[in-house]
């Protein structure tokens, strides 16, 4: 099994009710599989981490992902990162208790940035990723969205990255809304801009449709990991094949 030092290939499972779903631009969702089965499959195939994202929790203010998490972490011995609808230190505590190794939060941090201090004081920076859904305003400016890309926070993405990293977040999961689900490749200018302001790891998400997209992102050195969904769910490529290409 291939592991690349300090660069992670992450399988991202966006979950709605009992299903892994996939949309385009975070919309128009289609069912693609069972979360537990896919988590086990990607683990066996060499994923470095698994992301479980509850896509409806932040809309309805609840979290139904803990059952999937509990079951998955009995068989998946790599880090599982959970997010979607977490809003308080108590939510994070419950997520870790259920078997998560790290959490990512988007809406909850936008509404209450001080939550970052509470979580990292208790669990350390490495335990908290800030999920950022960015939509381009111009070729050099992005706005931060929340509630799965539905609401515009009016925050500037680069200013928001600076703010959350100063407050102690340990990582940025940066999703390009414009490229998400398109399989047209990563939004490189977004990651170029982010890597200039971030001194914490950035994970790129949104747009990978072919192995070449992943190779060029890897070679760019802009990010510390890539979260993959469509390319894996639709069997365009496998994690082990992707890693073989990356080390060649």
């Amino acid at each position, binding site marked *: 099994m291939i592991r690349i030092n300090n660069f992670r290939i992450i399988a991202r499972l966006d979950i709605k009710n009992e299903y892994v779903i996939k949309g385009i631009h975070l919309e128009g969702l289609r069912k693609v599989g069972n979360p537990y089965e896919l988590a086990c499959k990607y683990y066996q195939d060499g994923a470095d981490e698994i992301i479980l994202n509850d896509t409806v929790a932040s809309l309805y203010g609840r979290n139904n992902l803990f059952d999937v998490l509990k079951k998955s972490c*009995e068989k998946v*011995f790599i880090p599982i990162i959970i997010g979607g609808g977490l809003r308080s230190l108590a939510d994070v505590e419950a997520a870790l208790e259920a*078997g998560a190794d790290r959490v990512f939060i988007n809406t909850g941090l936008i509404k209450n940035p001080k939550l970052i201090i509470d979580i990292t004081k208790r669990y350390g920076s*490495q*335990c908290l990723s800030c999920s950022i859904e960015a939509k381009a305003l111009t070729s050099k400016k992005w706005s931060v969205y929340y509630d799965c890309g539905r609401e515009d926070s009016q925050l500037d993405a680069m200013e928001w990255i600076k703010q959350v990293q100063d407050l102690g977040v340990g990582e940025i999961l940066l999703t390009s809304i414009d490229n998400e689900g398109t399989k047209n490749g990563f939004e490189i200018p977004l990651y170029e801009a982010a890597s200039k302001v971030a001194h914490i790891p950035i994970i790129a998400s949104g747009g990978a449709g072919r192995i070449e997209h992943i190779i060029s992102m890897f070679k760019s050195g802009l990010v510390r990991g890539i979260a993959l969904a469509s390319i894996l769910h639709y069997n365009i490529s496998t994690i082990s094949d992707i890693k073989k290409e990356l080390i060649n």
Partner: protein
Amino acid sequence: MIAILDYCAGNIRSLINALEQVKARTVLTLDPEVINQCTHLIIPGVGSFGFASDYLMKNNLFPTIHEFNKNKKPILGICLGYHLLQQIGFEDGEHPGLGLLPGTVNRLSEQCRPLPHIGWNDLIIPKSMVQHPLFNNIKNHQFYFAHSYYVGYTNEIPTCAHTRYQDFLFTSLIINDNIIGVQFHPEKSHHQGLTLLENFTKM
């Protein structure tokens, strides 16, 4: 029976699952009597040194762990648990550790960018240690790390493995008689992590 120290330190569920996977019997406890009766002790950990050190002191666990060590029973500290085995921690102020190992816990240098150090990385194991039973049946020495702090030792300790992050070399594993400390997370390191845990349970 393996005692896992229950001090609200994050991902304990993963550790229990990993140990069950290698057929070990575990008990999650803070009770000194229960800990005393166990053959092995694991101090897990995701969290901050100050909070954890205070918590152990408040629950009067320092003497229990020292007693366990006096009986030469195997102790494994994972990540924060490894940090707690040291003399002093400088995370969120200065806090005392258990003092079973002679190191101090410091923040990784700002030259290590990005920080935290998250992901898989190699263990550089000295030849003298490769034959240690802890490494039985482990061929791939890459493990999963997630940390901003590391343990520094003033004097060279021969029974250490190291890991390089950017240009910085730190101790990522130490074996000191019955005490083992690891900076990485074996419970999150696929087959090689499970095998390492299994080897520990057989010590």
